């Protein structure tokens, strides 16, 4: 498992590369990227593929709960923290 700072850095980099709506200076880890439509429905499948690569595990889309992609904080907590259940 990579260090937390590396993972958060990779997530931030993916958001900035994917979205045209935000700059590096504006993006914060607690920013609601779905609610503010920084990441749109067209990009959500790419996010899931990216997380599968980063975690090395497959994600069962049917099991995803509301809020798991709410922010970089939420993604880190749900997919990378010890004991995270990937949902």
């Amino acid at each position, binding site marked *: 498992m990579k260090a937390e700072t590396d993972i958060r850095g990779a997530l931030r980099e993916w958001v900035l590369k994917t979205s045209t709506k935000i700059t590096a200076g504006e993006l914060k880890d607690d920013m609601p990227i779905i609610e503010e439509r920084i990441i749109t429905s067209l990009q959500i499948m790419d996010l899931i593929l990216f997380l599968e690569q980063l975690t090395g595990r497959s994600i069962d889309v049917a099991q995803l*709960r509301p809020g798991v*992609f709410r922010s970089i904080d939420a993604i880190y907590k749900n997919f990378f923290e010890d004991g995270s259940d990937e949902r």
Partner: protein
Amino acid sequence: MNVERQRSASRNRNHHWYENGQSAFAGELLELFHGIDALFLSWAGECDAAEYAFPTFLPAASLAKLDYFRSFPHLVTFPVTLDADEDNLSRFAEGEPMDQSGAVNLARLAPVCDVLTPAACYHFYPLFKGDVLDGPRYVTTRATCFRREAEYVPLERQWSFSMREIVCLGTAAEVTAFLDGYRRRISAFFDEIGLGIEWKEATDPFFNAPKNPKYLMQKLDPVKTEMVFQDRLAIGSINFHRNYFGEAFEITRAKEATFSGCVAFGIERWIHAWLTQFGHDAKHWPKLP
């Protein structure tokens, strides 16, 4: 089950059910229809919503902008006309116009560029295209809406039905305040008249939902809450569109794509809930405006 429900609804002599999924009303039921809509209009008046009356068709291009055809191909209904070429029209007129099953033997069709309204509020966003809002905008309309379904049940699931919507366009804070206020307002009304409604998070009825990213998005970030009667029938909903329509139609508020949200009511479903809860005798109905 559906047969039982059909029998129950058709008990009322002021309601006529068409097998193609439509209803006609007369007498006390028509008064109830107007009374329920007057109630919604009185609620719309509480935010000074401007009322609009729209035509039946929407340009298909407006719905394509919203990806409607990919999301809801199973629901859409198109108005079609015959190609105006004289030979084409003659062939149709001189041939057998109907087949045994009751289907029209169509000749070549003219290009289809319109859609029968699938939801009342879709008319507002193309109309406001390019507008710069200097404050929140509140509007309301009632439209006959069309949604093709696999089967129909009187008053509950119809091909054409009446939808009243109250819509707010503004900043995220203005829209969420609008939606929260109406949820409280409507809940108080349900309590007052004793209509058993539960609020439930829901998703739109996307085609091939498990593979549709928009469905997944609604699951991850719920934006629709329904007023559910008897644990199974949504008689209305509260919807937060975020800035989806503002972006698609370049409507801006405070220098950014406007947010929007709507409160939607299905009038035939309200009539169903009303008759189920209070009976068919108008003497026992709660008072409406």
